[in-house]
């Protein structure tokens, strides 16, 4: 089973759009896929038309076991299930702080999906709390979308620093450029700079497209609703590149 977190502590960078579309692509490729929504805003849940309710709340989520059974929902798409988030997830940090080994709890949670799923994606909340550290510990890879602007890059560097300081595996992090506006010279320069100076920067970019914004209206992954569109194709490319890069990596 492979696990991938879509993460950035900065909000509005295209995390959920990526999580939703990549999860759909994973499922399409034949992998039994689970998208785990960890954001109390439950956007991924909303995109799949699932009610933002997690029976037994944050406490139940951390207990796991039957609580997952009771909450996992089949999406409208073959091979793709969703573990919804609800507003009580804002308390996950508080709940975790009270536990022993508070940064290692997600390892157990993820391993409980081992038998049923081939791929688990986590749509992460935009913060850098204990929940985030749990995620860093538990997943195989972390995919970080960055908008190619100065501030966004600054956050990215802060994240890398944090990883280094806390001794997390830098090799887990992959980056891609999200909400790219090709005409903006700032974007172009930033992309060039990052690509030249950092490792594990994927070449596939997700452009800024209104279609992606409108996903919230249509409430379905855009790769499903308009597979031929340029938005869909960019997610396709991203997925393919990510899979191949990981395969190369693991050799």
């Amino acid at each position, binding site marked *: 089973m492979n696990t991938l977190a879509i993460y950035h502590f900065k909000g509005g960078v295209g995390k959920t759009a990526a999580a939703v579309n990549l999860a759909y692509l994973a499922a399409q490729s034949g992998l039994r896929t689970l998208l785990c929504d960890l954001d109390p805003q439950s956007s991924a849940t909303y995109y*799949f*038309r*699932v*009610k933002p309710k997690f029976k037994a709340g944050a406490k139940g989520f951390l207990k796991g076991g039957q609580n997952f059974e009771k*909450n*996992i*929902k*089949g999406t*409208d798409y073959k091979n793709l*299930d969703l573990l919804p988030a609800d507003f009580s997830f804002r308390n996950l940090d508080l709940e975790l702080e009270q536990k022993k080994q508070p940064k290692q709890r997600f390892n157990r949670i993820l391993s409980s999906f081992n038998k049923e799923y081939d791929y688990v994606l986590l749509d992460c909340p935009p913060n850098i709390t204990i929940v985030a550290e749990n995620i860093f510990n538990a997943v195989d890879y972390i995919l970080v979308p960055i908008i190619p602007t100065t501030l966004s890059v600054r956050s990215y560097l802060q994240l890398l620093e944090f990883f280094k300081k806390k001794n997390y595996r830098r090799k887990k992090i992959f980056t891609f450029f999200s909400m790219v506006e090709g005409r903006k010279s700032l974007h172009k320069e930033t992309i060039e700079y990052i690509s030249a100076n950092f490792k594990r920067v994927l070449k596939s970019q997700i452009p800024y497209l209104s279609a992606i914004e409108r996903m919230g209206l249509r*409430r379905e992954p855009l790769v499903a609703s308009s597979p031929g569109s340029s938005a869909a194709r960019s997610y396709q490319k991203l997925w393919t590149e990510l899979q191949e890069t990981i395969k190369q990596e693991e050799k």
Partner: protein
Amino acid sequence: MEKTLTFDLPRDFDGESFLREFTTAHPVKREPVVNQTGVFYDTFDWRLYNKSLTLVQRQKEALLISSENGALMFSLNISAIPAFIRDFPDSAIREALQPIIEMRALLKLLQSRAQIMPLRILNDDEKTIARLVLSSEEISTPDDRKLILNRLFLEPLRGYEADFRKLAGYITDRSFPVARQHIFDRARKILSRKPAGYSTRLNIPLEPEMRADEAAKMILRFLLNIIRENENGIHKDIDTEFLHDFRVAVRRTRSLLQQLKNIFPPEITGRFRKDFARLGKTTNWLRDLDVYLLSETRYQAMLPEKLRFNIHPLFEYLQRERKKELRKINRVLNSGEYSQILNVWERFLNDAASEFPSTLGGSRPVLDVARERIYRRYRKILKSGRKITDNSPDEMLHSLRIECKRLRYLLEFFTNLFPGDEINRLIKQLKKLQDNLGLFQDFSVQEETLMGFVEKFNLENPENRQTILAIGALVGSLDSEKRAVRSAFANTFANFTSAENNSLFTELFSGL
């Protein structure tokens, strides 16, 4: 997690009016109509049907479905189902089917073309909460007989079980019967062979007061049927079990004739014992070849890695021999002589007494004859078995094996004359002893035959040296297994002759 429910729809089912009504209470989204093909498989002896399983090849995948509730158990992306399980790709479905199907061929029994109308049932968020599928299916047999089946499938979606149950209730309220039937049952009218209509299990409805000769004829007619039913499969070389079932029926026929000697006129018994003996003997070599060829994987596993591939030329040789032998057997089965034997035999078995004379022994009640023979056979086994020690020659075990086989056949022939639980118990106990003796004999024969094969490989040819070496290693391995089985004999026999078993045998058969 709930399972898909399948409902049978009446022939005059009006899809549109049903949907009109349905959609007033439940919003749906129609999906494009799909044309679907299916080919349904089972073995000659209905192994899947007997386990309430349906194996179907759809356009691009093979599905294994529980016919009890329509639940999908396994699927495999494959464009055509292979005839043999060994040719399936490594998969969960193969693992599940292997112990059921074993070495039998999967036969195409029904084909279907269906129009599928899938619908998504939606909640107030327009989220799909279940799927409703209407299917109109034309089923046909290989010889072109047709039937139309209309069905409704209600498929659950994970996490929406409560909704599913409500929907199921709505549909059952419309009085559509839940389809519990296997598709072969639905298609009974058009199938030329009835599902579960073939079984080699002896379950002859004998009455204790029946004349022994009439009872015997009943059993023999059943066996003759088996013999006849398997001829085509042997001829077409569909799988190895047709010949096997054929031979077992022949063997049982011979055994009955031999063990109930006085119930038929001696000319009849004498003549047909000879005929069936010849028939059995003629097919011995082909059966042996089949068994060896089926053992290739097992033998390879027994060999040291270095020699594993070297055993292959032996199997190539056996394949060639088999081709020749099969042609020979087919000539025999197509011969006038063979038809004549069976036709006269059949006339004898169906004749109600006027054409062929009867004997005094034949008019005795079958229960008496059965008891007598079984008890006698049992006592003989005790006597012979008790003489066997760890140092006894192999021959004694082989003889005992034959005695046990005779007893087993008798128990099976007359099973319905005795209380079910008890006789099944005894058969089970006897089987354990037979398994030990049978295994011992198998190893002995294999060793001998394999050593015989060595002759076929010219030592002068350097390529053959490795093959001969491999055969030698195999013989060695088999021999040590044989010795292990031999040492287990004493215990196994002691278990068979336990006080419990003995009193059961005495109670049922001694007539005291």
